[in-house]
């Protein structure tokens, strides 16, 4: 009985809610997706990272049925994304959208709720999105951050099983961002799958169960945050030393060395142990030594060969 239950739970956990299989998409001469694969499983928060032009938005547009792949297959709940029934399980927060200015936030939610078979109530939506205070305000009168919060409310009002969020916290203040993060965690805990594209590496690091790194229309790496970090062999050493950053950066195992205004030197290396031994040997006065693994930010930068924001 317990075994059956676990199998059923595992099956639900691993069920693919959305899938892109070997999809290709071009815009004229520009290749947006080049044999890209992606699976979104139920109950996970998947962060899709990549530099501008990596193909993140195109991948989401294909999963939502906004565009058709030139080759390959896009599926939503095992059906075509163009199927209205499939889209009834989806909530969407897009990056570049302006909603009708003259409608109030509560009215926009009411209008969007009507598209779903079993939506949250208006009160539940306002509370979950943390937008009770702006419910009666016209969309035109909202600040940039409040508009993002209102769009977030629309994305969750239909009780979606799969939520697509494109740069959801851009423009939010710290409090609003933390409220949104808490809501996302509670949605995932309740079984909602979330696909999150973000430029904030810390956001992916804080929220994601799984990360996909894209570049030039292809998947570069995929795994948990820890797995992504483990892909990167670099480590960071920080210390206060009288040795010059210029001299250290010339050492064979050192990728870079910088000294900040507080005279703290930060060294990036592929062989932390060897560098630490040499530092201690050459500078008996060395203090405040700290060694840490690369974060997701460094992993992202190394994988894409572009600086993370």
């Amino acid at each position, binding site marked *: 009985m317990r075994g059956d239950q676990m199998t059923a739970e595992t*099956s639900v956990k*691993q*069920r*693919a*809610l959305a*899938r892109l299989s070997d999809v290709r998409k071009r815009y004229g001469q520009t290749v947006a997706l080049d044999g890209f694969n992606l*699976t979104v*499983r139920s109950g996970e928060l998947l962060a899709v990272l990549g530099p501008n032009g990596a193909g993140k938005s195109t991948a989401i547009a294909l999963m*939502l*049925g*906004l565009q058709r792949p030139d080759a390959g297959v896009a*599926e939503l*709940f*095992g*059906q075509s994304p163009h*199927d*209205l*029934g*499939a*889209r*009834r*399980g*989806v909530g*969407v927060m*897009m990056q*570049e*959208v*302006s*909603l*009708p*200015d*003259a*409608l109030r936030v509560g*009215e926009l939610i*009411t*209008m*969007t709720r*009507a*598209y*779903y*078979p*079993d939506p949250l109530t208006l009160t539940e939506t306002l509370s979950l999105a943390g937008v009770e205070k702006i419910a009666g305000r016209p969309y035109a009168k909202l600040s940039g951050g409040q508009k993002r919060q209102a769009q977030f409310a629309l994305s969750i009002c*239909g009780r979606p099983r799969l939520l*697509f969020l494109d740069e959801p916290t851009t423009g939010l203040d710290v409090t609003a961002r933390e409220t949104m993060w808490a809501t996302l965690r509670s949605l995932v805990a309740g079984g909602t799958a979330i696909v999150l594209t973000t430029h904030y590496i810390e956001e992916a690091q804080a929220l994601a169960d799984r990360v996909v790194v894209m570049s030039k229309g292809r998947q570069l790496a995929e795994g948990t945050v820890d797995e992504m970090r483990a892909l990167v062999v670099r480590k960071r050493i920080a210390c206060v030393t009288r040795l010059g950053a210029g001299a250290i950066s010339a050492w064979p195992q050192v990728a870079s060395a910088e000294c900040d205004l507080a005279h703290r030197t930060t060294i990036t290396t592929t062989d932390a142990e060897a560098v630490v031994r040499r530092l201690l040997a050459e500078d008996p006065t060395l203090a405040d030594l700290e060694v840490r693994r690369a974060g997701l930010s460094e992993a992202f930068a190394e994988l894409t060969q572009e600086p993370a924001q």
Partner: protein
Amino acid sequence: MTTSAPIAAPTMGFRRLIGAYLSDARFESLRLLRTPAFSIPILAMPILFYTFFGVLLNNKVSPAIANQMFVGWTVYGVMGPGLFGFGILVAVERNMGLLTFKRALPMPTGSYLAAKLMMAYAFALVVMTMLVVAAVTMGHVDLTPLKLITVAAVMSLGVIPACAIGLFIGSWAPASSAGAFANIIYLGMAFLSGLFFPLSGVLRTIRPIWPTYHLAQVARAAAGLPVDGSVASHLAVLMVTSAVLILLAARRLARVG
């Protein structure tokens, strides 16, 4: 192993589905009522123009002329909501990403256009009511109440070609120029189809190329006024023109969103 068998789609009951269409229509009308740049010209201009040009400047005309002027202004009034409601709004909403957003949502098929159509009907009904009241109280028309109601009812058909023309403009024109195109076409068609004064020469000859001419002929028939050709042929032209414009617009929207 990740399974990918189809997952049962949530079903939408009939009542909720109808509710979604009505909700879209309600909020479409509400937001345009709250947008003076749209609602004031659409609702106020036909009655102001009719009162000024059709009543005050022509207060000694015969009932026959007054009837013709009333019919002409009803065509003008009924075309506005559809032409601008689609022409400008579709172009603007394409530009602001709203159309793409709505396509990503599980909005019922056709609800986006149905909401605008219902909004156009609602606005046209208000315009027609004001024109009928003005005609009866000040316009010197001698149409019976039944004829007036028949004209109003038949004129409601004019919303469809107006929406088709508007949709065509909205699907092709950039947001920045859609308003200009809609105005030029609106006023151009109104004058060139002889709604406000008789035409002569080549302008008279080419009147049949304008949908407003055919709509005016249908309105004249409803009012019991003389008609060029058969009403059926005018209705056929209006239907074919509307269908072609809607098809072209749909193809464009499916391709570029």
